[in-house]
């Protein structure tokens, strides 16, 4: 672990952000983009990296990941989950962490088109595979994915926290079953919890997305 944990970054936190008129979110994205992500890692993983000298045959830490069609080099701990890598190293905060225990689905992403919980997937497991997060759904022209449009039109989300997971579950379903019955959609969406209970709106959204694609 790089111990070069920048004190300036920490001390500048809220005060500096406020002065610069930045939100906390922009601030975090900023430091990630400028390559200071190790600092963010110091914050998240503080002190638990331990002795990282690797025994022969163990995985390499510096790996290439294909995320949303772009290959990116990342330094990944052996025990790091994909959700951690996406959010805190690649700045892809669209993927949410709800429970971090495989019990809510907020962290759902697609790996080779299959929906899985990124909180319950080791990043080292997805080397050489294609990862798609909610940020990767928009078209090249910046248009929203048809599933995202349907979610808006049907007023799918309420608070929106579970929405990225719901969108990814829906995209995974429609990839393999473009015209599901409502019951099939219900089962496919069942691995993503909605604390607001907006399930019916989400189902309406999925059915609309399916209809509009046909």
């Amino acid at each position: 672990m790089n111990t070069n944990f920048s004190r300036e970054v920490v001390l500048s936190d809220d005060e500096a952000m406020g002065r610069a008129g930045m939100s906390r979110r922009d601030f975090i994205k900023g430091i990630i983009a400028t390559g200071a992500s190790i600092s963010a890692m110091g914050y998240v993983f503080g002190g638990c990296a331990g002795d990282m000298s690797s025994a022969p045959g163990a995985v390499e830490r510096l790996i290439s990941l294909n995320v949303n069609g772009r290959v990116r080099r990342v330094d990944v701990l052996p025990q790091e989950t994909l959700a951690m890598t996406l959010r805190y190293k690649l700045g892809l905060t669209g993927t949410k962490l709800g429970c971090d225990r495989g019990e809510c689905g907020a962290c759902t992403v697609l790996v080779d088109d299959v929906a899985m919980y990124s909180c319950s997937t080791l990043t080292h497991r997805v080397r050489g595979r294609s990862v798609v997060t909610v940020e990767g759904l928009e078209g090249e022209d910046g248009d929203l994915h048809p599933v995202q449009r349907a979610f808006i039109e049907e007023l799918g989300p309420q608070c929106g926290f579970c929405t990225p997971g719901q969108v990814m579950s829906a995209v995974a379903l429609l990839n393999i079953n473009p015209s599901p019955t409502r019951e099939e959609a219900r089962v496919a969406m069942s691995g993503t919890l909605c604390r607001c209970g907006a399930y019916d709106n989400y189902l309406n959204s999925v059915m609309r997305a399916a209809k509009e694609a046909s």
Partner: protein
Amino acid sequence: MLRDMMANFELYQPTAIDHALNLMNRYGDGGWVLAGGQDSFDWFKDRAKKPGAVIDINGIDDLHGIRETADGIEIGALTTLTEIETSALIKEKYGVLADAARHVASPQIRNVGTIGGNVCQDTRCWYYRYGLDCYRAGGNTCYADTPEGIDREHCLFGADRCIAVSPSDTAPALVALDARMVVVNGDGEKEVQAEDFFIGPDVDIMRMTILQPGDLLKSIVIPNTWAGARFYFEKVAERNTWDFALVNIAAAMKVDNNAIADIRMACGGVACVPLRLTVVEEVVKGSPQNGASADLAASAASRGATPLNYNGFKIPLMESLVKRAIRES
């Protein structure tokens, strides 16, 4: 306590069985086999288990996939629950297993969770999972079996210091199908009946299966014996998604002239192992497949059940599932 980030471990990703076995031997107790990880990560995040080395076996091609053999089918340990749920072969010949797989956890967990991990997973007793030093963790007390202990999810049969239950949905189906587990280690390969693969606290209080450090479950073999038979699977849980079975049941039945010619039945959530209901099988064999046989079967099923403070409801629940399995297979 930090409860989200896993403690550091060495991660290995072997691509051959031999390589994995070598690593498992090298690390012994300190090594951990990782299949889909859907049970493992909870342990690691809660810091209740801290392996020095994690051996991720997912890259071993030989452990994946479903093959038809002369005598039935062979399912690689790394076959995902989604693959089992959707396999045309399994749906056609061993529908009860596809049904059981479909009832596990959530779609995302089934996409990653493997059949091997599903049968090898540890119990859900929350005292134990919280990391308390109970009997099963090597200590000398049981936190669930006390006057204040919440033992609602715990066992009706086979208590021996530990009262935890088998959590798996696929295990009863495999016992009903008379499956065999193929286990490899440094000394070679052996086959074990599913029924003998699972062990209770009387045999070893710190393990749920016969697997010792160094043992790898390679595949599961299902013989032709019950191919295309009549089947029944039902799981009762608090919620349809994510929740473990309070009680589940799997049955395979052959019917001849409306008489039950042969039957195998196993029940999960009531003992530390998927409990084969041999008494029920004996009681109904040769009887007509009707309500009267179902009633007899139900009372035979719960004979000897010892309820704890909060789990008495499991007795009528188990009886109802047995009745339905007899009537509706």
